[in-house]
Every structure is written in structure tokens, then in C-alpha cells.
């Protein structure tokens, strides 16, 4: 089943798209249980190497798949994702199923409710196969910051899968599930998608409900799919997207109708290549990554798009603003893990000491580092210089990108400056943070962005190209992504 058997240091296998699987299950040509069993076998065979999952829900999943088959047999339509196995990043709440954020502080915690995206997946007939590993509380770009150990890149087990949705990206790349959900605060879907050679979407902020996504940085977090194809990404986006009254920041509209626009082509579309994110001045960028991005731009031009280079000067300043705003919000969001109500508790002689002991033992180094950074950024006397200034940069960026989108339908850049790097290679936090430079702008602006696999780079590892769209610009973004996918094939 896996290439591991061939002595190669990789775990991958050929797969059908979710769109095709659902179609076959809905028309009865294959059963949901058969499909699921193949995926569960793949997990059994390969996950001891990859370690994509914190929890595999084989029994629950088989029961659910049986119900899907019964519905099909009874002539009912279980929905657009009928019988499609889906892996969930372990920061998405699942009723009565452990949801850990890969943190000791939440180990064994079982939420009493499902996240809205989980409810919607189930209503569409999807089968939840398990919960995937992540950097603790989604803080990281390699999935090495998990309290339960790192996930490995299925294309090279000595390499990281990216992060923080590294478990989800690896699960799709390894063929453990055709679809996974991740969350993207500064690139946590797109960067691991690029490093694992899969498609990763961060929708417009407010396009997908955050209810039940355990918050890292509330103004930046979005849930999105990791898939093998752009078509699968579009389908899952339409299933999970749209207004949710439980999320006040949810846009009161249905999702953008991307599926029916996918094949409209790119003739005449205006594509801007962001100079600051696509040139050799970008810190730590690999020439192969720049080459693939240039080839993608050229190919789009050849396919009929108008492609130009465009300067967005504030785009590189995004990284500094992001590393003020995200930790600031995190310092507040993570305050509740105090040992009083749920999760781990360490004893202490009084309440304050108990809270301190719980947090000291419960959080890993990176989480502590960001809580301290964020607390500092919000402190009296520093607020204006750090948090306040970062908000100004954010506003400036939004304005600059909005202006650029007056002239362009979508923008192009690499998804990550580099391909998958060896475990332990980026032990210095700053080196790791720089990885997010291409992805954070879309989180700060709230705009949609998608990473599409486009060839390979150093050591034959996958490269991802990022297509960014304006607010609610999912349709032009998906059209270009679909074109790139076709070109890359």
C-alpha cells in the first residue's frame, strides 16, 4: 500500500478525489464502508511512521459509513460529501471526543459540543476518521511544537510537514484521508499544504464559522480544507462555509458559489505577482521556489491571463505586525486554561499558585513564549508602541491591498519561501517565524488565499504557489487555482 515497502523513506499512495468518491458512493457503485476501510488500512500501515493523527476514530467512522450505505440503499441522498472520510485538526471541537490542541493542558478534555464546521460536514454525509496533530494551540510552522511529538512529511519522513496543520496536510498527502480540515492564523493551512504537496485553502475571514475552533488569534483564525484537488477544496468550502449565528464575525451570506465557476478559465483575468514576496530579496527564499512561482506566472500568461509584477510595500511588514497581534490575542484567549474548570490541574497551596503551576506544566515553550510576547505587547506603557502600532500597520496593509485589487483580480506569490526542511533545522524561533512571511498578509487583511502544488524544488520536494484574492474574492481565486492545477499536471 505505501511506498515505504519499496524501501523509500516516504508514505504516499494514489488516491481518488473526494468529488469522485462521493459520486461513486452516492450512485452505489462503491460502498462507504469499502472506501473507509481502504483509508483505515492506510492509516494502520503508515501512521506509525507519519504520526499524523492524535486520535483515530475507526469504530465511530465504520458506524457512520454503514449509515451512509443504508441511506444510499434506501434511495436517499446522504449529501455532497457522502461517505467521504475527513480528518479534523485537533483544535476543532468534537462532541464527546478528545480535542487536545496537542497540548498537555487539554489532554483528555472532551468537548460537550461539535464545532459548526463539524456539524456541517456530518450533515453533508462526511465521515470523521480522526483528529490530527498540530503545533500546540496552532503555534508553529512545523508541527514540532506538539506535546505528543512531531508529525513527519509523507514525502520524506526526515522532514517536517509544515504547520501548524501539519497532521492534516500529512494525512491527505499520505492517503490517510482524502480531505482534512485545518485552521489558518498566519499560514497554518497553506504552508503545510505547500510542504506536503496538497491544496490548502484559507477562506475570507468570516466566510467559515469559527464556532468550535479553539481560538489562537481570533481576528486572524479561519478554518479551511486541505485536499488533493482544487475541485475538492471548492466543494468542501461550500459545505462548511456560510453564515453561522453562533459566530458574530461570520459574514451573513451563503458561501461563494465556487464549484460552478471552477472551469470558467482565466482568459483576460488580471494576475499580479507580488514583487516583495516573489523576489530574491525575500529572506530565506530558495531559488527553486522562486523559479516555480515565475513558471506559474508565465504559464498563466500563456493561458490568457494578463500577468504583471506589482509592488505591495507593506506586505513584508506584515510579519512584524502579525507577531504582535497574534500573540496579544493568544495571551487573552489562552488565559482560561487555568486548571479551575477543565483540563489538567497541578496542585498549589492557593488558587494563584495552582493556576501558575497548571500553566507552567500544561503549556510548551512556544506557547509560553507567545503568551509572554502578547502580554508584553498589551501592557500599559507598551500598548501604543507594540499592539497599537501593529494595528496601524494592519490597517495600512488592508488599504494597500485593497488599492492593488482595483487593478488585479488575484495576486500570486510562493506559499512558503522554502520546501520541507529537516526536523530540528529551525530551532531558533525567529528562523521559524520568517517562514510565514508569504502567508500572513492574507490573515491580516482577512482576504482569501489558496496554496496549489506546483512542481518540486530542492531535494525533489513539493513547492506550493499561493493565489490570493480580494475580500470575498473566492471565485477568481479558485478559477486561477484550478488553472494552475491543470498546468502543473
Amino acid at each position, binding site marked *: 500500500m505505501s511506498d515505504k515497502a519499496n524501501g523509500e523513506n516516504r508514505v504516499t499512495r494514489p488516491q481518488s478525489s473526494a468529488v469522485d468518491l462521493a459520486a461513486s458512493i452516492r450512485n452505489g457503485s462503491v460502498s462507504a464502508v469499502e472506501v473507509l476501510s481502504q483509508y483505515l488500512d492506510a492509516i494502520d500501515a503508515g501512521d506509525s511512521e507519519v504520526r499524523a493523527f492524535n486520535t483515530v476514530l475507526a469504530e465511530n467512522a465504520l458506524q457512520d459509513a454503514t449509515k451512509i450505505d443504508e441511506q444510499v440503499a434506501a434511495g436517499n441522498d446522504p449529501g455532497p460529501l457522502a461517505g467521504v472520510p475527513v480528518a479534523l485538526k485537533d*483544535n*476543532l*471541537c468534537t462532541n464527546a471526543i478528545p*480535542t487536545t*490542541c496537542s497540548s498537555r493542558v*487539554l489532554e483528555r*478534555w472532551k*468537548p*460537550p*459540543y461539535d*464545532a459548526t464546521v463539524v456539524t456541517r460536514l456530518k450533515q453533508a454525509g462526511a465521515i470523521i476518521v480522526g483528529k490530527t496533530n498540530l503545533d500546540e494551540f496552532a503555534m508553529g510552522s512545523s508541527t514540532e511544537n506538539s506535546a505528543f511529538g512531531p508529525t513527519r512529511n509523507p514525502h520524506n519522513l526526515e522532514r517536517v510537514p509544515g504547520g501548524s496543520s501539519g497532521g492534516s496536510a500529512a494525512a491527505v498527502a499520505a492517503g490517510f484521508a482524502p480531505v482534512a480540515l485545518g485552521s489558518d492564523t498566519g499560514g497554518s493551512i497553506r504552508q503545510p499544504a505547500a510542504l506536503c504537496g496538497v491544496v490548502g485553502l484559507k477562506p475570507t475571514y468570516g466566510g467559515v464559522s*469559527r*464556532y*468550535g*475552533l*479553539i*481560538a489562537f*488569534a*481570533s*481576528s486572524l483564525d479561519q478554518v479551511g480544507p486541505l485536499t488533493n484537488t482544487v475541485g475538492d477544496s471548492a466543494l468542501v468550502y461550500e459545505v462548511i462555509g456560510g453564515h453561522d*449565528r*453562533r*459566530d*458574530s*464575525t461570520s459574514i451573513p451570506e451563503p458561501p461563494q458559489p465556487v464549484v460552478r465557476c471552477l472551469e470558467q478559465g482565466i482568459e483576460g483575468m488580471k494576475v499580479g505577482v507580488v514583487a516583495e514576496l516573489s523576489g530574491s530579496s525575500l529572506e530565506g527564499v530558495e531559488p527553486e521556489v522562486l523559479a516555480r512561482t515565475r513558471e506559474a506566472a508565465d504559464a498563466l500568461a500563456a493561458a490568457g491571463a494578463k500577468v504583471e509584477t506589482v509592488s505591495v510595500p507593506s506586505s513584508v511588514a506584515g510579519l512584524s505586525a502579525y507577531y504582535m497581534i497574534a500573540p*496579544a*490575542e493568544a*495571551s*487573552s484567549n489562552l*488565559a*482560561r486554561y*487555568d486548571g*479551575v*474548570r*477543565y483540563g489538567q490541574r497541578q496542585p498549589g497551596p*492557593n*488558587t*494563584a499558585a495552582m*493556576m501558575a503551576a497548571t500553566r507552567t506544566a500544561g503549556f510548551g515553550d512556544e506557547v509560553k513564549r507567545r503568551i509572554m510576547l502578547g*502580554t508584553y505587547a*498589551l*501592557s*500599559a506603557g507598551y*500598548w501604543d508602541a507594540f*499592539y497599537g502600532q501593529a494595528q496601524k500597520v494592519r490597517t495600512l496593509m488592508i488599504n494597500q491591498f485593497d488599492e492593488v485589487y482595483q487593478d488585479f483580480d488575484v495576486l500570486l506569490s510562493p506559499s512558503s519561501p522554502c520546501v520541507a526542511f529537516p526536523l530540528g533545522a529551525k530551532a531558533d524561533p525567529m528562523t521559524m517565524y520568517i517562514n510565514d512571511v508569504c502567508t500572513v498578509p492574507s490573515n491580516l487583511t482577512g482576504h482569501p488565499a489558496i496554496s496549489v502544488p506546483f512542481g518540486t524544488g530542492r531535494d525533489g520536494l513539493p513547492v506550493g504557489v499561493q493565489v490570493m484574492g480580494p475580500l470575498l474574492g473566492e471565485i477568481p481565486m479558485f478559477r486561477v487555482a484550478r488553472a494552475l492545477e491543470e498546468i502543473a499536471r
Partner: protein
Amino acid sequence: MSTKTTASEPSILPDGWEVVIGLEVHAELSTQTKMFSSAPNSFGGAPNTNVDPVSLGLPGTLPVLNAKAIELAIRIGLALNCTVQRSVFARKNYFYPDMPKDYQISQYEEPINRDGHLELPSGAVVGIERAHLEEDTGKSTHVGVSGRIHDAGYSLVDYNRAGVPLIEIVTRPDITGPEQAKEYVEELRSILIAIGANDGKMEEGSMRVDANVSVRPCGSDELRTRCEIKNVNSLRSVGRAITYEARRHVELYEAGESPSQQTRHWDEEAGRTRAGRSKEQAEDYRYFADPDLVAVDPSPQWIAEIKASMPRLPSARRVTLVDAGGSAAAAAIAVGRGLDDLVMGALAEGADIDRVLTHVVNNLAVDGADQLSPSHLASLVDMELSGALTSTQAKQVLATMVQTGQAPGDIAADRGFEAMDSSELEAMLDSVIANNPDEWSTFVDADDKVRGRLQGFFVGQVMKATKGQADGKELNRLLRSKL
């Protein structure tokens, strides 16, 4: 805002000093559900039953604003003559076990209401700085040595109150004495009740008062170091705590020292304030706009609709009673008890306003009084004035009316109440005089003071003999006529 000063209350401080008071009142809003979730907002109930994942702040949950809380906040703003504006919710970050998220959602830089004022019945005007929305915390019970968190053996937390909507109404430092502070709290309370925003139950903690107190030399306009007194949870303790604290400040100044800015707690039993945490070491709350919520920007149209639906406020209702002939003091009490509609109803039936207000002031501080039928009250007053009932009988009949809702005529008949005629009364009086010759001769020779006392003796004897059915007024007249 210029503060109209009225006849000032007697100073509580040594000559040359005056007290400066600002109040922060937290009032729970009378909504069905909590501020940001659909968990019920109700007092009492077994611990941790009025909760849901959102009000417990469970990971992944998000707040969704209760529109009714906004409407009530706007009502309050309008009643306090505030500017109602676009507002933003902020997070106030600090660790406390009874706060599920370890931050409180509040309003900081942009409150929903700002810059209002409230005119008190005495005529004083108190400036309102802001009236903003926030969520309440849960309640901790510390089980152990002293009942305080620091040395508790263990603590129990009840989150039923967590997330209940609160309005915090902050005055300017315009209040000039403890009596005025009480008057402000009373007036605010009756307004909140009148507009349906709060149940006014201070004893259940649904209205809580913090007082900022400082002193200064009379006539000065400086604002000296203030202390914030917490836990002032009854009208009586509002006055006592302010008086205690102001005197403490004066004593310090007169001893050549000065108070330090701090939060102090009112100890009702000991009758004193005690230092809490010092403000210099105050926590840094690291406020920032809550990214889970969007700004609240009520449309002018909505505000106008709310304004149009506002009930009449206590001040206007007092004016109505005074215009109808009532005294200002009686009008204030009648409105304070919510009995002004009853009074006006009885007047419409032709009742005498003085008699009606006398009953409202003296005999109707009871539950259910607002359920009385205005026409029954009018009949009662008529029976009393016509002599069909004595005032003592009327009082008894009134009590039964509140309990049973029966008409006064029926109650009087059931009880066999009929006014005694004068000759019968005079005969009884004569017999009391005959049985008490010493007292009578003292009475005849006495000065007014002693005579007043003995008059009570003779009236009392007759009352006793008639089991209270005698008309006291008539009896007094008869007694005087015998001199």
C-alpha cells in the same frame, strides 16, 4: 455641567471640610438570557445549572450579543439623558477563578452611553460620565479558616451568575454628602425598575454600589486622593460607608498624613472600611477590542423607537402627584413604591388625595399594594371621611383589602365594624373618668405637656374598652370639651 446645589444636608465632617463622592452602580439587566449566550439569566437555582458551553467559556465557544441587553442599556442611557453612541466591547484581562475566560467582556474606550445627568427629587443634579455594558462574574465560596480566598481550605465556584448582563453607571464626582448619595441610589433604582431594566433587589445583589470618596477644604474645587469602597450593598451602608471613609480621610489630613489611593471594602458588621489592594500595584488589565464581537452601532431609528416606547419616569410621575395636590414628600414615596397609578386611579374616583396619600405612606409598604383596586381604595377613604369607619378600622380593612382583594364595605360588614355614635362614646368616656379620679384631676390642672400625655391615657382606656372601634379624633374632641 453645572451642579445645582440645594439646601445642603448637615455636614458629617468637622468644620472646614467637605466630602466629594462619585458612585459606580452595577445593575444586572432583566433579560431572559445571558449577555452573550442563551443560558438563562435567573437568580437562585442549584449551583452551575444556569450555564451552557458559552457562559462557561469552554474552548472554542464564541459570544453572541443579546439584543435585549442593548435595548435595555439604551433605555437606561435615555433615562439618564446620555448620548447613546456606537460602542465597542473590550476584553479586561485578569486571572480570577470565578471568571470563566479569565477575562471580562466590558466596554472601555467606547461605552454605549456617555455624558448624561440625573436630577434628584431634592433638585440636585448629578452628572453621569458613562453607562456601559459588561458581563457579570460567577461567585466563589471559600471554605476554610476565614472565608477569604487567601487562606481558604478549598473554594467552590458557581457560574450561574457568570455572563449575566450588567450596566455600570458611573457618576461624576458631583455628590456632596451621604444623604445625597442615598438619594441618588434610590432615584436610580426607581428609574431602573420603572423602565424594566432591573428588579431593584439590592439584597440579592442585582444592584451593587461602589463609592469613590475623597475630602477637601470647603469651597475648594480640587480633587484629592480618593478611595474606592466596594461591597456597599444596601442603602443604609451607602450612607454609613461614605461617612466613615470621609471622616477617616479628614483624620489623616488633620494628623498631617494623607490617604493613599486604594480599593477598600466595607465591613457592615464592624462599621468600617478595610484596605484592599493598593491602586499603585493595581493590575494592568491589558484592554483591547474583543475580536470575537463587532461594534454595536444602534441606528437613530431604533433609538427613536426605544425612546417612543419608554414609560414615564419617576420624576414626571412625582410632578403629576404634586400637581394633583400631593406633598412632594408623599409623592416621592408613592412613586418610589410604584403606587402612583393607584393614587391617580383613586383620585379619578373622587377620593381625597390627603387621605389616599396618608394610606400610601403609612400603610402600604407591603407586597401586593400595587394590585389594589383604585375604586376600592376610593371607597375606603370615603367611608373613613363619612365616619362610617374609624382610622384604626380603615387601616385594618385596608390590610385585608391587600390580602384578599375584597371591597372595603364587605370587609367592614364581615368584621362588624360600625362607627359608634357620639353619645355612646361619651358615656364610655365618662365612666373611664369616674374610674380614674386622680388622673382626671391631674389632667384638669396640668400644663400642655403633661396634659398631652394624659390625653393618650384616657383615649387609650376607651379604645381598650371598645376594642379599637372608637373614633380617636371624636374621642379627643369629647375629652377636650369636658375641661
